[in-house]
Structures are given as structure tokens and as C-alpha cells.
């Protein structure tokens, strides 16, 4: 067997936070619910509320990647694409909603010399339709790309770099001004959310609470999933896909299903993220950002849903703080953190914190 083919496979070393027993996830779900309640009862300064909401959106994104990377061994370097699909559709909804209420066209539409929104925006001012469209679009793109890749057994680093090319091409596409989606400036200046003025304290708190509750729901749901028979098959597929196939399971269908689910969760994160920052532009499609998602997961602890959340919150919290305090130093700190984790803490910072004794089922797993 060739060395290259051997190393192509997913790592077999990653442990997995499994099933309903994972107290870390229980704790995080409780924390999310408590934080949401706290925001409603005694809201702190709006910028803190906003930061908390953004962190929750990033955590959802990290969980979506951990689901495919940690439990299925598929490292996607293109998850920014699904995040962006959610974000763009959400931005379109907000703008279309604004046009429907105020009648004023967004700047970039006027800039292109159009007198109305392009035809494919029809109906986007209805929130349920926009939500369904975002999830369906993310799922569809994931399905087509996943089908093409998994069917031909593209996996390991091959899959990673092709998914990176995918997000890169999408970025080039969105930088064009003639797409009707804002070109390189993206879309911003959202006036209203469900009829309420954007940026008012109520809306800010509402968005943060929605993000926290969604995170709690996603955590609870994915924990159920990975604890189920499907979750066991995911781990089996990660560790020895050929073996699983020769036992009669269609791994293509398994991978495709989880992959599409992961893409839709990422899109959900994008939907929650965009109204909180008030802008979307092609830079969310930069390959570097998609790699950063993987970095959050690796830093927090690959293959542990709670690890993904902790990594996303930690790295982005640090980033919020440091890129304002010492912007020059941030890239060095980030790269140092990554090297530290991959070299010294193979299971991420959870190794360091050692929240609980290592469970017996981990001891043997390499």
C-alpha cells in the first residue's frame, strides 16, 4: 500500500464526544439558555449583546464543521460558502423587506442603473420563503458537490482542497458587480427587521437571543444525532470507510446526508450572523476564512461538539479583543495558537482543561 494513499484517509486518532452522556454539551446548552434568559431580563450594553450574538453564530458554524470533520473525517475547507449562502439570502430578504416597506431601492441597485430589484428577488421579502430558500440552496449546492465528490471516492486532503477551490471560485464570482448581489461592496444598509428598525436595542437583543437559542437547539439536536446508530456509523465511516461499505452500508448516502445537513446548519449560522453585523460581502468567501473555521474546531477540540463551540467562542472572542488592541500581533498569535494545538494538544484545548477524567472508551483509541 502506498504511503500517500494510506495518509489520504481521515485521521483515526480523533476521539468523539458521544451521545447523550456528554456533560460538556449539556453544560453548554444550559449556558446558552441561561445567557438568553439573562439578556432578556437584564440586558448589558448593546455592543456586548451584539458580540455575544455573533459568537453564537460562529459557534453554530463551528458545530456544523465539527459534524463532518470530527465525526465523519471529512475536512471541508469550503464551509464559508454555505455560511455565505445563508448570509446572502438573509441580506436579500432584509433589503427586499426594506423596499417593500419604504419603497427606497438599495444603493447598489441604483448604482447599477436598475429601477427595480432583479426578478429573482421576487418573494424574498417574505421571511419564511427566504429561510426555506437559504437552506434549500445551501443543501442543493452541498448535494451536487458532495455527490460528485463522494461518488467518485474523493476524500481526505483531496476533498479538502477541492472544497477550497469551490469557495475560491464562488468568491471570484461574487466579486463581479453584474451578479445583482452587490459585487465587491456586498450588501449593507439594511433598514428593517420584521418591520422594526435595525440596530434598536430590542432588535439587537432579539437577534442575540435567537442566535443563542438556535445554538442550544443545534447542540441538542446534533448530540442526539451523534449518539444514535447513525452517529456510530459516522464514526465507523471515519475510521474505515471501506470496511463499513463491505458490511453493506452505502457510505456515499451516509456522507452525503450528513454533509448536506452540515451545509444547512452553516447556512443557518450565516442567516443569524448577517443581521447582527449589518453587512455581507464576498470577503466571507475568502479561502482563509473557511480555513479559520477549521482552526476554531481544531483549537477547541476536534470531534467534540462542545469543543467546537469553545474553540469558536475563544478564538473569536480573542480576535474581537486583540484585533482592536494590537492588530499587528493577532495573526502571529493565531498562527502560534494553531501550531501549539496541532503539535502539543492533539485533541484541542479540551486536553488542557481536562473537564473530566478520560472515559474508558477513549483509552484504547489511538
Amino acid at each position: 500500500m502506498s504511503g500517500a494513499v494510506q495518509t489520504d484517509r481521515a485521521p483515526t486518532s480523533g476521539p468523539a464526544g458521544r451521545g447523550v452522556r456528554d456533560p460538556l454539551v449539556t453544560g453548554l446548552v444550559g449556558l446558552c439558555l441561561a445567557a438568553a434568559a439573562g439578556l432578556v431580563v437584564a440586558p448589558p450594553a448593546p455592543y456586548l449583546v451584539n458580540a455575544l450574538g455573533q459568537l453564537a453564530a460562529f459557534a453554530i458554524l463551528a458545530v456544523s464543521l465539527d459534524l463532518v470533520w470530527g465525526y465523519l473525517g471529512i475536512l471541508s475547507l469550503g464551509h464559508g460558502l454555505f455560511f455565505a449562502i445563508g448570509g446572502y439570502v438573509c441580506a436579500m430578504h432584509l433589503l427586499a423587506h426594506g423596499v417593500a416597506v419604504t419603497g427606497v431601492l438599495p444603493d447598489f441597485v441604483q448604482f447599477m442603473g436598475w429601477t427595480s430589484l432583479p426578478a429573482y428577488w421576487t418573494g424574498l421579502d417574505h421571511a419564511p420563503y427566504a429561510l426555506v430558500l437559504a437552506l434549500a440552496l445551501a443543501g442543493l449546492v452541498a448535494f451536487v458537490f458532495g455527490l460528485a465528490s463522494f461518488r467518485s471516492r474523493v476524500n481526505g486532503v483531496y476533498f479538502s482542497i477541492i472544497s477550497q477551490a469551490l469557495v475560491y471560485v464562488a468568491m471570484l464570482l461574487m466579486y463581479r458587480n453584474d451578479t445583482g448581489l452587490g459585487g465587491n461592496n456586498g450588501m449593507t444598509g439594511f433598514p428593517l427587521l420584521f418591520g422594526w428598525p435595525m440596530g434598536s436595542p430590542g432588535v439587537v437583543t432579539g437577534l442575540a437571543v435567537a442566535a443563542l437559542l438556535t445554538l442550544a437547539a443545534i447542540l441538542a439536536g446534533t448530540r442526539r444525532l451523534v449518539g444514535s446508530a447513525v452517529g456510530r456509523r459516522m464514526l465507523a465511516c471515519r475510521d474505515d470507510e471501506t470496511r463499513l461499505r463491505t458490511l453493506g452500508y452505502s457510505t456515499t448516502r451516509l456522507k452525503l446526508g450528513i454533509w448536506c445537513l452540515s451545509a444547512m446548519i452553516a447556512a443557518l449560522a450565516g442567516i443569524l450572523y448577517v443581521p447582527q453585523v449589518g453587512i455581507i460581502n464576498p470577503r466571507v468567501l475568502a479561502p482563509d476564512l473557511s480555513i479559520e473555521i477549521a482552526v476554531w474546531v481544531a483549537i477547541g477540540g476536534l470531534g467534540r461538539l462542545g469543543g467546537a463551540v469553545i474553540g469558536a467562542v475563544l478564538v473569536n472572542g480573542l480576535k474581537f479583543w486583540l484585533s482592536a488592541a494590537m492588530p499587528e500581533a493577532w495573526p502571529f498569535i493565531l498562527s502560534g495558537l494553531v501550531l501549539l494545538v496541532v503539535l502539543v494538544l492533539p485533541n484541542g484545548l479540551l486536553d488542557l482543561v481536562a473537564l473530566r477524567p478520560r472515559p474508558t472508551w477513549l483509552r484504547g483509541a489511538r
Partner: protein
Amino acid sequence: MVDALTVAFGRFTALDSVSLAVDPGEVRAVIGPNGAGKTTLLDVISGLTKPVSGRVMLGDRIDLTQCSEAAIARAGVRRKFQKPSVFPALTVRENLEIGCGPAVPGRARPARIAAILGEIGLGPRARVPAGSLAHGEKQWLEIGMVLAAEPALLLLDEPVAGLSDAETAHTAALIRALRRPDRAILVIEHDMGFVEAVADRVTVLHEGRTLYEGSMAGARGDAQVIEVFLGR
């Protein structure tokens, strides 16, 4: 069942028009020196490798060369790999549950898993992750996994490689116990004593061709076979 199979990797021909038929109820051993094409033969039957030409018929109707690995497995073919292939992150019980395959309904599983745990002698270790089992235990667990689906054709790739004499004897007994009228077993092995103990007939492969087919005793007397194994 196997009809005029030819497999090539680049310019190298691994199997050259190999044919053999294994009957239900039979234990057939395939022996041959390294590079004879034994593992390749199993790869083709289990769908990991597609042949250049030839067919692999299961029963009268299903040509396995046209099926995916999963479909082949669902048709009742199970393979034990040379290197023990169990899922290290899952417990013994979970491994066996996956081994039942997608066809066995959830209600029927616990009973079957319990039975197999008894057969392979891993009952006390059911909750241990497979990654921490000893080598021999992994071999048995894998045999248990492929048995869990009640296969019609069982492919065993060197099931006693690296085992102690006692473990080999245990495995030979296990395989003899697996013999059933509706099940064909194809074993690949180097250990002649083991082959003699379990096999009804042997097929000798050499450089991608069939050299001999018949009883083990006949193989021991065949001049060509002796030359291949002992000569040079």
C-alpha cells in the same frame, strides 16, 4: 462462480483468466505464493477492484462485478480482511451491531449480537472499545462482525496470520463450526496445517493463473505445486 477473471494494474496482470466455482456448504481454500493474486481475487469478489474482463456470479443471477461493495455485501457476501479491520472508536457490541448490516431490523439485533458474542468468546468484553482489544481478539471480533449478517458467502483473508498456535486452533474450530449447507466459505491462507484442517478442496494460484484444483492431499502430491512452493 468465478468465470475467466482478468485483473490488471497498469501493465501488471494480477489475475489472468482465473475461474473457480465454490458450492454452498463447501469450505474452499485458495493457496499460493506471495503475488499469486489471492487477495486480488477477494478484492474482485467483494467489489473493491473492478476486473478488466470476466464475471463473478453469486447464484445464477447476480453478477457481482456490476455491483457496488455495499450491494455485494447486501447480497450476502462478507469479507474478513487480512489486517483486522474493526472500528476502534466503537465498542465490541457496537461493532457487532454495525456488522449486522442495514437489513437486520433493530428488534432482532440484541439476540443475534448476544449469540455471536458467545460464539466468538468476547461476551465479557462487550463494552470495551475495539481499539483496545488484543490482536487475536480483533480477529475474532471481525469474524463475528462478518457473521452477524448470516452471510451466504464468507471470504476470509488469512484469518490466522500472526496468531499463536492455540489461537490458530481456536480459529480453525470456529471456522469449522461456521460450515452450513447454505453457506460457502472461501479461505486464503499460508498455513498448510490450518488449510488441511478446515478446507474441503483447495485451489492453487500462481502468478495469476490456476495451477491446481482438488483435495489438499492431491495438492501435496502434484509435481507443479511442489515446484512452485518448494522449487527455485
